[in-house]
C-alpha cells in the first residue's frame, strides 16, 4: 500500500477535545493539514487550575465542532478522508467514550473505515510524524499521568524498558505546586520558581536511583518536600520567597536526576541492539522543562544518539498524533469495526503490565 493517505483524528481522552487531519505521501514528510485543540485551561483559569469536563455530552458537543473545524481548515470534506482514527483509551472514560461514539457515527454515516488508537501510541509515534524517525527508537514519555521508557519497534510494537511505579513526574510537579501555593498546572510554575532557587540547599531523595533497572518512583519525593516545607516553616515561622524557590529548585533537580539516570540506562539497553540511526525522543508536557531537557540532551550526546523533542503543541494532547498513529495502523491494514470499545486503561506493552502502581520496590525507597 504505497498510496497517499489522509486521515481524520479525534482525541478526547483527558481535559482537551481535539480533531485533526493528517496526510502522508509515502517517501515524504507527513503533513498536518489542520489541528484543532479545544482546551479548557483558559476557560477554567478562574478556578486556579484545569477543571475536568465530566459529562460525555459536553465532550460530544465540542468534538463535533472540532471535527467540523478541522475539516474546514484542511479544506476537505469527509468524503475526501480515507479513514477516521480515534483515541479509544486510556483516559477519562466519559471523554474517551464520547470520542469513540462520535467516530463511530462519522464512520457509519460516511462508510469510511474506523481505526482505534491507543493515546499513548499517539505520543510514542509522534517522532515519526515530526522527524520521520526510523524504527527502532527510544521514547521517554513524561506527562501528567504517564512516565515510561519505551523502545518503539513498530506502529504496534512497543517494549517497555521501565517507568514509574507510582506517581508520574507531571503529577509530582502539580502536587508540589499545590503544597507551595503555586498556580496549576504545576510544571511551568514550579520551573519558573526554581530559576531563582538554589538546587543544592535542600537535598531531596532520588528514589530507586541505587537500584538496577529503569523503574522510577516519585511518590516519596512529594512527601519529602512536604516534610521539608513544614520544617522550614516551623523553624522560621513561615516560608520566604527564597525558601519556596529553593524548594522548587531542589525538587526539580531530584526529578531531573532520576529521569536522566534512568534514561541513560534505557539508552544503554537500546544501543546494545546497534540501531542504524540511534535516536531518543521525548514527549509529554514534562519535556518542556528546560532543565530536564538539557539533562536528557547531554545523555543522548554522550551515547551518540540523536535527541528530538517534538514541538510542545504536538507533545501535549492533540489529535494530529492520533490521526498519524491511525494512519500507520491503517497503512498496515488494520481497522476496527463497530465493536471498538473505550478502554480506561490500555498498556502499550501488555507483556509488562502491572508495573505502574505495582509499588514493587521492597522497603520504602
Amino acid at each position, binding site marked *: 500500500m504505497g498510496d497517499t493517505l489522509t486521515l481524520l483524528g479525534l482525541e478526547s481522552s*483527558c*481535559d482537551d477535545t481535539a480533531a485533526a487531519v493528517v496526510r502522508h505521501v509515502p517517501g515524504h514528510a507527513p503533513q498536518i493539514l489542520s489541528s484543532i485543540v479545544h482546551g479548557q485551561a483558559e476557560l477554567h483559569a478562574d*478556578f486556579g*487550575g*484545569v*477543571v*475536568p469536563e*465530566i*459529562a460525555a455530552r459536553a465532550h460530544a458537543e465540542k468534538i463535533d465542532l472540532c471535527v467540523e473545524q478541522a475539516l474546514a481548515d484542511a479544506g476537505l470534506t469527509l468524503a475526501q478522508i480515507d479513514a477516521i482514527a480515534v483515541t479509544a483509551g*486510556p*483516559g*477519562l*472514560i*466519559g471523554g474517551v467514550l464520547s470520542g469513540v461514539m462520535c467516530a463511530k457515527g462519522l464512520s457509519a454515516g460516511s462508510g469510511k473505515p474506523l481505526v482505534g488508537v491507543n493515546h499513548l501510541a499517539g505520543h510514542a509515534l509522534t517522532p515519526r510524524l515530526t522527524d520521520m524517525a526510523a524504527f527502532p527508537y527510544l521514547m521517554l514519555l513524561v506527562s*501528567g*499521568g*504517564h512516565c515510561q521508557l519505551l523502545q518503539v519497534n513498530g506502529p504496534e510494537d512497543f517494549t517497555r524498558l521501565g517507568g514509574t511505579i*507510582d*506517581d*508520574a513526574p507531571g*503529577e509530582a510537579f*502539580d*502536587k508540589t505546586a*499545590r*503544597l507551595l501555593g503555586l498556580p496549576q498546572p504545576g510544571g511551568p510554575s514550579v520551573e519558573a520558581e526554581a530559576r531563582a532557587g538554589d538546587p543544592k540547599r535542600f537535598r531531596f531523595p532520588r528514589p530507586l536511583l541505587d537500584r538496577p533497572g529503569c523503574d522510577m518512583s516519585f*511518590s516519596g519525593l*512529594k*512527601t*519529602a*518536600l*512536604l*516534610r521539608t516545607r513544614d520544617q522550614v516553616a516551623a523553624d522560621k515561622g513561615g516560608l520566604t520567597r527564597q525558601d519556596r524557590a529553593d524548594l522548587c529548585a531542589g525538587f526539580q533537580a531530584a526529578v531531573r536526576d532520576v529521569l536522566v539516570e534512568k534514561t541513560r540506562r534505557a539508552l544503554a539497553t537500546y544501543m546494545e541492539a546497534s540501531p542504524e540511526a540511534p535516536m531518543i525522543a521525548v514527549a509529554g508536557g514534562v519535556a518542556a522543562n528546560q532543565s530536564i531537557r538539557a539533562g536528557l540532551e547531554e545523555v543522548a550526546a554522550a551515547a551518540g544518539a540523536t535527541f528530538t523533542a517534538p514541538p510542545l503543541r504536538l507533545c501535549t494532547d492533540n489529535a494530529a498524533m492520533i490521526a498519524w498513529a491511525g494512519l500507520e495502523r491503517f497503512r498496515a491494514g488494520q481497522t476496527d469495526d463497530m465493536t471498538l470499545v473505550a478502554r*480506561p*486503561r490500555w*498498556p502499550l506493552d501488555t507483556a509488562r*503490565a*502491572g*508495573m*505502574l*502502581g*505495582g*509499588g514493587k520496590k521492597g*522497603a*520504602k525507597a
Partner: protein
Amino acid sequence: MSQTSRTIHLASPDATCRLAERLGATLAAGDVLLLSGPVGAGKSHFARCLIRSLLRTPEDIPSPTFTLVQTYETSAGELWHADLYRLSDGGEIEELGLAEAFDTAIALVEWPDRLPEPPAQALSIAFAPLDDPEARNATLTWTDPRWDPRLEGLDA
C-alpha cells in the same frame, strides 16, 4: 446510628499496605471507603495496595488524579478508585456516576470532602502524618454496623 471511631498506628508503608489488604479482603459491592488526609499522607498508597490485593492478574494501577476515576474488575467485583481533588461542585460528581457506583461497586474515594453528601454506609479513613516520616495514624470512623465485625481485631 451511633458513630464509632478507632485509630490504628501504622509504623511503615508496609503496615499501611497490610491494613489495606486485610480490609480489602472483607469488601463487597456497596462498600465505600472515604480516604482523607493531606497530600503525601498515604491515601494512594493504601488504595493501590488494596486494589492490587484484589486483582486476579497484575495490572497497571495509575493515579486517578487526572482521569478522576479508574475502574477495575476484581475478585470481589467491580471497584472504583476515584480522586475528587479536581472537582468543584456536586453536579460534576453526579455526572461521574459515582453515586450509582456507591450502590453497585466497591468504591475508594480520595478527597471525599468534595462529596456534597457522603454515603451513610461509608467507612472513613483519615490518614495523619506523624513525626516519624515512615509512620502514619489512620483514624477509622463509621456509623453503619456492617463495619463492626469486619474491623474487629484489625489493629491487632
